[in-house]
């Protein structure tokens, strides 16, 4: 059963009482909150996620109202994971952003059986394409465009690699667009389902994109990577998609992994194998139509 098959009253009840358990790729997450505004935001955005009944949840998260003595008339929330609060309090109208960051933090910090790259990952023609980049490079925006143009979403944030098998695991989560990207995507993809704009967050204005339904339905289907593309959005720049030396790709990938150092030799072998079996590029783009055409050509050439 998926969330949209549950009446909204039941959805709110699950969230506020025993917790809503959903499958986010390889992770089961239990979410609890009594905040009705957050529940109303989650219901359409989580519509396609599968409910989990009898399986263990890896992460138990909560978003609670918090009252401040210093600012008694302001409304704040705090995020808890397994009863611990990793963040300070946030204004309550940022609850959705806080929940999503909190779940990302849990994945980043607590996943040590997989190699984690800071990378968007999409799939086309049975091959995964990694788009590793630091914040501000436009990877979420590019990822959003690609997954509405025939690519399957694995993640806009995490490349989850099984280091033994070399497979990438999908974890299709909401994609948080920031600032100007929100208008850009609304214009380019009027069919995209976006949540409310959340203002004045630590990253500016944020609006979450709901992943395509098919990407969530196929979240159990892993893929091996065939392409590694390091993207950078530059205003008005002509498209450039150029091969990247493998040694450079290795260094960039290893340095942008969340847990490369922790996994030691396992990481070294996995990244070596990954780079040896992928075609590596650096990409500069400013125009969606051109970049999608170029990446289609790349991923058609298998």
């Amino acid at each position, binding site marked *: 059963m998926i969330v949209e098959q549950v009446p909204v009253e039941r959805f709110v009840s699950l969230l506020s009482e025993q917790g809503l358990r959903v499958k986010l790729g390889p992770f089961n997450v239990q979410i609890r909150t009594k905040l009705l505004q957050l529940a109303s935001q989650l219901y359409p955005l989580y519509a396609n996620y599968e409910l989990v009944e009898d399986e263990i949840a890896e992460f138990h998260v909560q978003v609670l109202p918090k009252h401040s003595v210093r600012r008694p008339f302001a409304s704040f929330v705090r995020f808890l994971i397994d009863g611990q609060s990793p963040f300070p309090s946030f204004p309550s109208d940022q609850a959705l952003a806080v929940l999503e960051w909190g779940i990302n933090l849990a994945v980043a910090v607590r996943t040590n059986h997989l190699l984690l790259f800071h990378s968007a990952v999409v799939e086309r023609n049975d091959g995964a394409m990694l788009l590793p980049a630091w914040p501000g490079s436009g990877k979420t925006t590019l990822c959003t465009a690609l997954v509405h143009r025939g690519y399957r979403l694995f993640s806009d944030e995490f490349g989850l690699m099984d280091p033994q098998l070399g497979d990438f695991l999908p974890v299709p989560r909401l994609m948080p667009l920031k600032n100007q990207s929100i208008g850009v995507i609304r214009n380019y993809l009027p069919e995209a389902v976006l949540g409310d704009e959340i203002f004045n967050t630590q990253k500016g204005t944020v609006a979450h994109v709901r992943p395509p339904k098919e990407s969530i339905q196929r979240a159990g289907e892993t893929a091996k990577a065939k392409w590694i593309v390091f993207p950078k959005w530059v205003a008005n720049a002509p498209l450039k998609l150029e091969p990247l030396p*493998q*040694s450079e790709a290795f*260094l960039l990938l290893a340095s942008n992994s969340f847990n490369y*150092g922790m996994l030691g*030799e396992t990481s*070294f072998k996995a990244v070596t194998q990954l780079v040896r079996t992928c075609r590596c590029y650096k990409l500069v783009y400013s125009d969606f139509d051109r970049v999608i055409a170029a990446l289609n050509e790349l991923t058609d050439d298998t």
Partner: protein
Amino acid sequence: MSSKTSWRSVNFSSLHIEEWNGEYTVFHPESGKTHFLNQMGFQILVDLHSRPLSAISVDEICQNLMNQFQLQSDTTFSDQVSKTLHRFDELGLIEQVK
């Protein structure tokens, strides 16, 4: 830095080495760290490893490198090699022999 200092390899055979068109990634199991070396840096490790029973002086290392890479003698070269050797020492890849 004294050019009389000699150096020797430490556990070269334990390193995991991958070659990428003349550049090298080297995983050092003892520290768990990965190092990125160019051809000359890697050649220093190979030269030291090739003489496991005796330490090699900086001068000899420099001479070997100049021969292999067909370099002209240069006063700054020895200093650069010495700095690299000390860096490798800090990383646990080689050690000084007094």
